[in-house]
């Protein structure tokens, strides 16, 4: 069962994230879609802000180069610190992993790799799981059918390189518009194949 919930709406099933408790009852804390299944459920916010989590793969832009590392804009209010010996320049685009976050939700990055020239898109971070798909199904399919190399960062940045970039962008826009439609992978497949014929 899918249903739209608003902040302060009571939730009967067990939901851990995006909720709060008051006097033994659970209430939604966000404006989102509640997906219920046999007493358990989850809330997917309709819009959101990227908050770094340990283990996230993100795409960042170098803001400031310091001795022994650099400050990286990762689409959050506070920039993240990357400890690295690689010679980055300002405005370089890189993919990295969030190693650690502190109480202030500031991230420390590592396992960085510089990305060559490509196209960078920014989308709402709540849409990212849909763009990746279950077990990377969506993103693998898009890469296969367009011949592009696509890297999706958890922070809502998408880097596209080579192949048919416009087709990738069209597919991503369709996913963003139809986030809450089921069977989306099939629809995108048809869209991509239809245009190639």
């Amino acid at each position: 069962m899918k249903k739209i919930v608003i902040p302060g709406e009571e939730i009967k099933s067990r939901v851990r994230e995006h909720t709060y408790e008051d006097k033994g009852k659970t209430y939604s804390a966000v404006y989102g879609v509640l997906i219920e299944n046999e007493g358990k459920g989850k809330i997917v916010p309709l819009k959101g802000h990227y908050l770094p989590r340990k283990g996230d793969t993100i795409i960042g832009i170098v803001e400031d180069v310091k001795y022994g590392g650099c400050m990286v804009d990762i689409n959050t209010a506070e920039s993240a610190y990357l400890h690295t010996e690689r010679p980055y320049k300002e405005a370089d685009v890189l993919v990295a992993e969030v190693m650690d976050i502190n109480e202030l939700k500031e991230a420390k990055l590592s396992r960085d790799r510089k990305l060559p020239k490509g196209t960078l898109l920014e989308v709402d971070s709540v849409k990212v799981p849909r763009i990746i798909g279950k077990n990377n199904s969506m993103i693998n399919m898009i890469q296969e059918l367009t011949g592009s190399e696509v890297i999706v960062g958890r922070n809502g940045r998408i880097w596209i390189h080579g192949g048919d970039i416009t087709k990738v962008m069209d597919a991503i826009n369709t996913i963003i518009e139809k986030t809450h439609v089921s069977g989306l992978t099939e629809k995108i497949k048809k869209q991509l194949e239809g245009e190639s014929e």
Partner: protein
Amino acid sequence: MKNPDIKLLDNKGKRLDGRGLKELRPITIKAGVLDRADGSCYLEWGGNKIIAGVYGPREVIPKHLADPLKARLVYRYNLAPFSVDERARPGPSRRSIEISKVSREALEKTVMLEEFPKTQIDVYVEVLEAEAGTRCAALTAASVALADAGIPMKDLVTACAAGKIGGKIALDLAKEEDNYGEADFPIAILPRTREVVLMQMDGNFTREELDEALETAISGAMQVYELQKKALKEKYSVEGE
């Protein structure tokens, strides 16, 4: 404020605009109207036309104002120069600074600011056309815009005014009733718990009248809440099982 020459209630107990004593003006709310804002809302409440935009959480500027424990909420209520009969001088006035402060404090009660330390959430509310009760309408629009921005909150904030005209308690005063009536009493509540987060008063009530006005205003706010809920639920439709 009181003017004996103006009759605000006719013999049948109807008001100047034909409403009953416990009737709201017509309200329409639309969520998500601005493309560039993170969340937004357009609201019409009688003759009031209000647009609210929410930006953030984003970097705090100037940086020393950042709070390491929670986000900073900025609320700006602005009366457009062309929104009132006589042109309002642009920029913040004594009145708009006060309204911004009390409205911000009302929203601070419900927005989960501790989720976004060292950031700032901006709420800008522009009154494009004013016709009494703008602070209630502005706060109602702002809370819909905050929810639309995906900012975690405990509840929406719903506001409504009550007042006294012709010796009787009435809901949601219109312009003439506000200008020539005996009292105006705007409140804002959290609809789930009915906790009062804003309360102001202009004019005089007896103790009994105050109780009645509070009850009237809360019942009005609950009607407004249903409209806020509807606006948010209508914006998206869910397909599938």
